[in-house]
């Protein structure tokens, strides 16, 4: 990963988002430069996915943790934001109840469940966006890394984790809207979510968050800490024998990555207008891994490129040839792993393959 390509990527993300926003807000409708609102929302969605992809790349590309449950952190951040947005609806809901969201009135709730308290306060909601995915990652990661669960076993239990959350959030008793999830949002921090200006503002905000995320991620992986992390990725036992504690390094980067994914989810929900348990489905998490693989694992920039390209392809495909999308996605998984281990960036850098990621099989311990 070169410093230049990351700077180029930052420029492209910020500049692109800025141009789209200006095109949407400042250009009159009918002008050749006018950008329709749905395109702004779509771009915002891609950038949120890019945030998730960068989070995945941070753990997979630099710590060798293939998490198949990262979309769970994304969705948890989204739910935290969704709960805030639900409380903002107030009396504008279908039932006009000032305290209870519509689905609670519908399900005969008498009062707000305890975990909904505080979400009317934006500051509290923002803290929760960071805290909920972070704490889950901390507990899960602490248990997993301490007992040296790694490789595919870790992948499988992260998948089981998101599957368990999927089942849990589908329950109406969970008090989070059951399978309909949270939707029908009206405004955020006082701005109407349907307004073009808010949409453009959210896109620019997402671009800024993504840029900050990339800078933080680059700082982490290029620091001394990052060097140890890469050592852990390549040969964990040798790093341990050198006196480092791999589990601490992994845990830190896992939690950081989960928080980043949570922020992505929190920005995703107001732009999409809904969050439901489907976001927890294991397929979503695995898809986010393929974005990283397509772009180029362990490059950060590749994650952004992969997320935007694959999702752009998905939008085109599902619109034009919905039958073929799964074939294309499946083929992408197979071809990238078989023929293009370095992803697009690997191809561009003419190395033909990524920096050596898969170490030779360690002798059995």
């Amino acid at each position, binding site marked *: 990963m070169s410093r230049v390509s990351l700077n180029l990527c930052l420029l492209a993300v910020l500049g692109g988002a800025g141009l789209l926003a200006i095109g949407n807000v400042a250009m009159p409708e009918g002008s050749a430069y006018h950008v329709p609102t749905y395109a702004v929302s779509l771009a915002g969605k891609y950038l949120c996915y890019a945030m998730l992809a960068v989070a995945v790349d941070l753990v997979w590309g630099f710590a060798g943790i*293939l998490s*198949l449950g990262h979309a769970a952190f994304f969705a948890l951040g989204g739910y935290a934001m969704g709960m805030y947005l639900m409380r903002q609806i107030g009396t504008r809901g279908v039932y006009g109840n000032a305290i209870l969201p519509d689905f609670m009135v519908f399900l005969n709730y008498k009062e707000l469940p305890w975990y909904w308290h505080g979400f009317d306060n934006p500051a509290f909601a923002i803290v929760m966006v960071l805290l909920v995915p972070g704490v889950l990652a901390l507990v*899960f990661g602490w*248990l*997993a890394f*301490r*007992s*040296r*669960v*790694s*490789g*595919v*076993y870790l*992948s*499988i*239990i992260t*998948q*089981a*984790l998101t*599957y*368990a959350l999927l*089942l*849990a959030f*589908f*329950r109406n008793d969970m008090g989070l809207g059951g399978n309909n999830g949270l939707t029908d949002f009206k405004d955020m921090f006082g701005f109407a979510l349907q307004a073009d200006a808010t949409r453009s503002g959210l896109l620019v905000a997402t671009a800024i968050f993504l840029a900050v995320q990339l800078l933080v991620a680059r700082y982490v992986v290029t620091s001394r800490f990052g060097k140890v992390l890469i050592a852990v990725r390549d040969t964990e036992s040798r790093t341990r024998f050198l006196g480092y504690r791999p589990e601490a390094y992994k845990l830190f980067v896992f939690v950081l990555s989960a928080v980043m994914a949570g922020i992505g989810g929190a920005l995703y929900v107001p732009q999409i207008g809904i969050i439901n348990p489907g976001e927890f489905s*294991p*397929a979503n998490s*695995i898809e986010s*891994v*393929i974005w990283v*693989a397509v772009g180029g694992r362990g490059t950060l920039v590749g994650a952004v490129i992969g997320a935007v390209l694959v999702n752009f392809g998905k939008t085109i495909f599902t619109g034009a040839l919905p*039958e073929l999308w*799964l*074939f294309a*996605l*499946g*083929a*992408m*998984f*197979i071809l*990238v*792993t*078989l023929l293009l*281990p370095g992803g697009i960036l690997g191809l561009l850098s003419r190395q033909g393959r990524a920096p050596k990621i*898969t*170490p030779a*099989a*360690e002798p*059995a311990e």
Partner: protein
Amino acid sequence: MNLLRCLLLMLAFMLALAPRQARADDPFAGMGGSFDETKHAIEALALSGDKQAQPAIAALQDGKLFIAADKSLWIKTDAGTLNARTGEAGAAPGGLKPVKKNNAVREAANSALGSLTLFSADRATRAKAAEAVFKSRDPSALPALGRALDKEGDAGVRAIMEQARAAARLAAGETPDADKIAAIATLRARGDLEASSLLAGVTAGSPEVLKAAADAGAAIARVQQLWTLAQGVFYGLSLGSVLLLAAAGLAITFGVMGVINMAHGEMVMLGAYTTFVVQQAVQTYAPGIAGAGLFIAIPMAFLVSGAVGVAIERLLIRFLYGRPLETLLATWGLSLVLQQAVRSLFGASNRDVTTPAWMSGATMWGGLTITYNRLYIIIFAAVVLAALMAALRFTALGLQMRAVTQNRRMAAAMGIRTPWIDALTFGLGSGVAGMAGVALSQIDNVSPNLGQGYIIDSFMVVVFGGVGNLWGTLVSALTLGIANKFLEPLAGAVLAKILVLVLLILFIQRKPRGLFPLKGRAVEA
């Protein structure tokens, strides 16, 4: 004129005969007279054991019993008239009038009909009648029950009649204490929910009776608890056998070979679709053997999924050995392709696989309800696992597989073509998954998403049981199945599944190495 005279003569003759028929032991005597006479006649009929009693009283109830001017009784049917005494068809004389009824007559007819079937020639009908008396607890049925018990030869029906008598005696107020206690003992022996609710209804009586009833009620509750427990175990075994079937193939590909095949669920799905295709073919070309279609589907599913498995290994997985995370991603992509291919071929909606007649229905075994399809799946899972173990233990292929697993280079040096063994091992695991699909097609929706629902569970089963150990897979599948079913009543179905998943995640973190001994090819790169 002649004819009329002849008729008159006949009528006179019959009239003369009539009083003689109204003998004291004639149960039909008095029928069609006053309400009181009719009622007595009904009661006499009910106790008579006469073959014609039941149809006559039933006809009376329906308003189809007529009395002629000569007091002979006739039943009107759609086909004509029947003599009520003999049941033979015949032309009724003139002056037919319906036998009159009031409420007392109707009531008598009702209870008579209930007890009459106690004397039916058909064993099942008698048992049903006795069960009806048991449920109604009607003390007025006691005399009929007593007579029926005297006549009854079948031990099973006798037992039900005894229970019915016990129920009726308990319900009757003036039964002596000794009889009541005997009745309680009979009900205690019956030991089901009906009996316990009857016993709970005993609130009046001497202290001895009350105590006996309370004791019997408690004893029944204990027995019921045991049955509930046993039912839970059966459901757990049933779920466990489904998990075992889904995981058995994975125990080979993941457990023995160390290949993370995320398309394993799709091998199961292919097996289920093979079952559907075989069923369609059998219905079209050989409808006579429709019930045996499943037996054709089992080897077919093994071959189809096994062949696809061999193809996957040769074309994809062999390039990814030693790179488990890449294998995982590539096979996930493959699963998407297979799902979409099946969806394009067969459509996205569920396909209808009919359950053969010999697999539907249920049987009661004590307090257990055992559904046949679940029972057969348990048996099938056991057979599949046994066959798999035997194949690994006793066949040349199994020997070579174990050799390659234990020491690939040594095996190669001994002349084993290890790449082919890899392909065949993978094919075997996939084929077993296909056979699981045959079983799952009987209890689950056959849709392109069928396999996805099982993939996480299957991995959990294999990982929990210990990689590379079929016995471990067996124990783990049954443990998870039973744990799931016992948590369900406490927490609800979905929460139970979540709890089991969380417990598993914690367990894996507790014993990560103990359960995955790296005996085979290094699972981790």
